[in-house]
């Protein structure tokens, strides 16, 4: 299932990116519909399973938040959301695709399909924008990390209040390297999460720098028409 899903969404992502490279902004509506459909299927599967909704469906995991942001982004691309998705959404979703962790529910097959499509569409969103001619700015990396920390602080408070474990801030997912850091104590564990986020953001900043050095291979500089009010790129 994982290999087939990755192959399909990899091909789909390449097609969308190439299309955006030719003429930017045309496929946003279609991608929004797919994302909305994926999220609806996920909700339906979880609700049908009878699992406690507070512990599973609040958009307090990074990917849940990014899914909502990506859906809005496909309709109205903004620079702030673009950089958040580039620096945090894309690496997070890519990790989830490589190391999937899906809830066990009666409707397992639709949930798994929705899991892969949601994460793939999160990862595709910033690539779709970059192929349309708007490169991510390396200078936006610190702001994305700060936004991530603010979000984590909010989620930590919610976790403590409701006794849930969104963003794995209170306990590490079993069987992952994070379990080792958790055994060292709360502070080393939280510091390891921070270091992982900083590593992701740093790696994506390097990727953004690399894109800027080889722009022609990634996007078409003539994908957008000049603005009639004075030729500025908007």
């Amino acid at each position, binding site marked *: 299932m994982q290999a087939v899903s990755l192959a399909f969404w990899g091909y789909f992502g390449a097609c969308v990116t190439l299309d955006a490279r*030719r003429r930017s902004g045309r496929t946003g509506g279609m991608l929004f519909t797919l994302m909305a459909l994926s999220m609806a299927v996920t909700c339906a599967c979880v609700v049908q399973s009878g699992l406690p909704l507070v512990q599973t469906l609040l958009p307090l995991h990074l990917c849940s938040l990014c899914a909502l942001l990506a859906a809005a982004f496909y309709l109205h691309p903004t620079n702030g959301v673009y950089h958040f998705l580039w620096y945090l959404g894309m690496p997070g979703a890519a990790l989830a695709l490589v190391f999937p962790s899906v809830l066990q529910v009666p409707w397992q097959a639709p949930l798994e399909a929705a899991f892969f499509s949601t994460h793939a569409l999160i990862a595709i969103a910033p690539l779709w924008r970059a192929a349309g001619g708007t490169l991510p700015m390396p200078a936006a990396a610190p702001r994305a990390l700060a936004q991530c920390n603010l979000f984590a602080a909010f989620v930590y408070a919610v976790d403590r209040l409701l006794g849930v474990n969104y963003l794995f801030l209170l306990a590490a997912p079993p069987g992952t390297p994070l379990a080792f850091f958790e055994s060292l104590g709360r502070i080393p564990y939280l510091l390891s999460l921070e270091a992982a986020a900083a590593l992701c953001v740093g790696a994506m900043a390097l990727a953004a720098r690399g894109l800027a050095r*080889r722009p*022609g291979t990634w996007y078409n*500089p003539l994908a957008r028409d*000049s603005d*009639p*009010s*004075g030729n*500025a*790129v908007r």
Partner: protein
Amino acid sequence: MGGRLIAADSAAGALYSLGPAGVRRAPLPGAAALCAHGAALYCASKREDVIWRLDARTLCPQALFAGGPNVTRLIASPGGETLYALCQDGDSVLALCARTGAPQMLARAGQQPRGMALDPTGRLLAVAGGGRCEALVLDARTLRLVRRVPLPGPAADVAFGGGMLYALHQAGETAGRVVALRARGGMAWSAPVPGLPGGLCAVPGGVLAGAEGVACLTRGGALWRAPMEGLCERVLAAQGRVLLSDALLGGVYALTPPRGGCEQLLPAQADDLLWYTDAP
């Protein structure tokens, strides 16, 4: 949703509109600088020092404002409420109310300034200071000087894009150079362009520089160069092609880079070009 190329030819005293339906000619004495906002097209007349407001679809004049001496560039603010006119012979920038044409502000800008650009937020206005060998960044609301960037040669044009200010200046007798300046000061990169400097057009990730031909320049170097005879004074991107006007030999051309051909669209000597997309 189609688009049309609108070209102003001051020598012929006409505006040309090239669309899927063909070429349309509308007489307008001294038609030079162009810009558009919404359904309104603005055109400065070199002959009478006035600015016309026309219906962008029909090219019929709707209103007439007093302009300035030899307006070579017109820009509309993002909201469409203000028009900025670059008066080459007056060495100044004039801000006008786009609705009534009432003058709002006037600021000195270089010596025989040639190019002007408004940043995407509409807060900063850059002017290529011509013979003063500098690019000026003004506050678009007050026209107060924010930053002065000295350049090694006469400044031909400026453009904003991707958080950068691009300036094209002369660098030697028959050579130009594009300089990319960061928003907070400092040069990010620069690249030479062969021939006398013409015009700039910002594109995603870089800039199109017109000189003897057109080059697409980015931080990593030139993506492609399309050499031509003449001087490409106005350059713009539309529908995956580069549209340009030759100021020396005359003619408006469409170029399909990097290896595509060059096609003459109009035999006119266009002072300014504009890509207008009709409302859906």
